[in-house]
């Protein structure tokens, strides 16, 4: 999978003879090495989950948020370089605010995804900028219902039923495909996402992690918010139980 650029990989404004932009591909590697991020579209909303790898026991629980609100109706989960992710979130917030200022109504999720993707792409066009080392999963709920988009460091974005980024993305995607998303409510969805993240977490390579879950659904009044603590604990417990069951085999 990894091929050496040898000379064509020094700048983001250089194509290789076989038509690849290596800098963007290297940026994608940064995303692939980060903690898993999962997003699913349930029938009544979106659930976003992040496997937040804890690097030090001194870190306070709940700090270093990886899921950010962009407006009342949308949230962005970041995989990859966290600082780059903050920049993207900041830009998304300002796009959402300026859209509302001009058009008088909250930005549609599709439009927001388009603007974030354009911004990410912008940073792959100039030699004095480096591409963002992060991929984002954008979940929102507007009048076209709940929607899920994933934006990659190349600036490419697609709409998804379920998406995953980071170390455990292959395994996560396999698990997501097993779910009947059109019949799942968000309440059930958070348990499933917790199970997936606990499932793909590699105990050997990374020790501790914190599960960050957020949702936008009818139950949360179509507002993006952290999953309430009691539901979060329930989801974690169910995920732990499922893991133990698997290990018992």
């Amino acid at each position, binding site marked *: 999978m990894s091929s050496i650029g040898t000379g064509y990989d020094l700048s983001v404004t250089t194509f290789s003879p076989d038509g690849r932009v290596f800098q963007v591909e290297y940026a994608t590697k940064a995303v692939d090495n980060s903690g898993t991020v999962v997003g699913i579209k349930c029938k009544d909303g979106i659930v976003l989950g992040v496997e937040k790898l804890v690097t030090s026991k001194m870190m306070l629980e709940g700090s270093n*948020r990886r899921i*950010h*609100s*962009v*407006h*009342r109706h949308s949230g962005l989960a970041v995989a990859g370089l966290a600082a780059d992710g903050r920049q993207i979130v900041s830009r998304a*917030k*300002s*796009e959402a*605010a*300026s859209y509302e*200022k001009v058009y008088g109504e909250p930005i549609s999720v599709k439009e927001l995804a388009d603007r974030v993707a354009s911004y990410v792409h*912008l940073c792959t066009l100039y030699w004095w900028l480096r591409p963002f080392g992060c991929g984002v999963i954008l979940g929102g709920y507007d009048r076209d219902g709940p929607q899920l988009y994933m934006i990659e460091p190349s600036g490419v974005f697609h709409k998804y039923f379920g998406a995953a980024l980071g170390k455990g993305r292959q395994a996560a995607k396999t698990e997501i495909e097993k779910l009947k998303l059109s019949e799942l409510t968000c309440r059930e969805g958070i348990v499933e996402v917790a199970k997936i993240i606990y499932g793909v977490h590699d105990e050997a390579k990374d020790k501790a992690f914190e599960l960050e879950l957020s949702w936008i659904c009818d139950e949360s009044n179509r507002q993006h*918010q*952290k999953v309430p603590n009691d539901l979060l604990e329930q989801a974690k417990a169910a995920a732990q139980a499922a893991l133990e069951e698997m290990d018992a085999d």
Partner: protein
Amino acid sequence: MEEQKWDQSMGGFNAASRSQMAEAAAGGEESQRTLYPYVTGTSVIALKYKDGVIMACDTGASYGSTLRYKSVERIKAVGKHSLIGGSGEFSDFQEILRYLDELTLSDHMWDDGNSLGPKEIHSYLTRVMYNRRNKFDPLWNALILGGVKMGPKGAEKYLGMVNMIGTHFEENHIATGFGNHLAIPILRAEWREDMTFEEAVKLVEKCLLVLLYRDRSSINKFQVAKITTEGATIYPPYSLKTFWGFSHFENPAQGAVGSW
């Protein structure tokens, strides 16, 4: 090009001042200074009561001496803990609501369990009003900010006002415009600590009635709003009963003597 977009979206009142500075720098005269208000709301009154703060005003907006708009909501909820009532230029009040909307949105997006209380919002508004005044381009309003927020000592009630020149203070009962002259004397005489909601409404209606009789820009359609720890409630508009059966009104020319 990208940088400009950043600047523009940096926050309401920055953008306004930037456009003005740009105009001045371009060698143009001082344009867009507010010289006089056009569409204005009249008095707003508010007082603290047992469970929180009650605020009331009429639903009219005048265009000079014409009672042009009769269904205008001049009291709005701000965030989870406050109410704002505005008199004066209505378009400036709408702009202030937009600034507050941006403020509460970014507060909400922190998602950290904290939210801006009435004291903080009053402080923010004071800064906005005073800074505009210093540029000789005021937001032509008198604003009342009331709310309740849970604090270390329990539910803390707050009521304050700020006007177009940046004067601000806190009190147990506040009025703007004509309310200062007609309602405040009544409130000073009859306000007590820990009134019930019914008592507070009765006192407020007494003041509103005097304003209706004596303020030519008020109309007989009022809204009462309250803010408690449970949240804000803005009640639907209603009218007060007035009495015009005074003997002098029945035969007004009776006492008229001479050619005057």
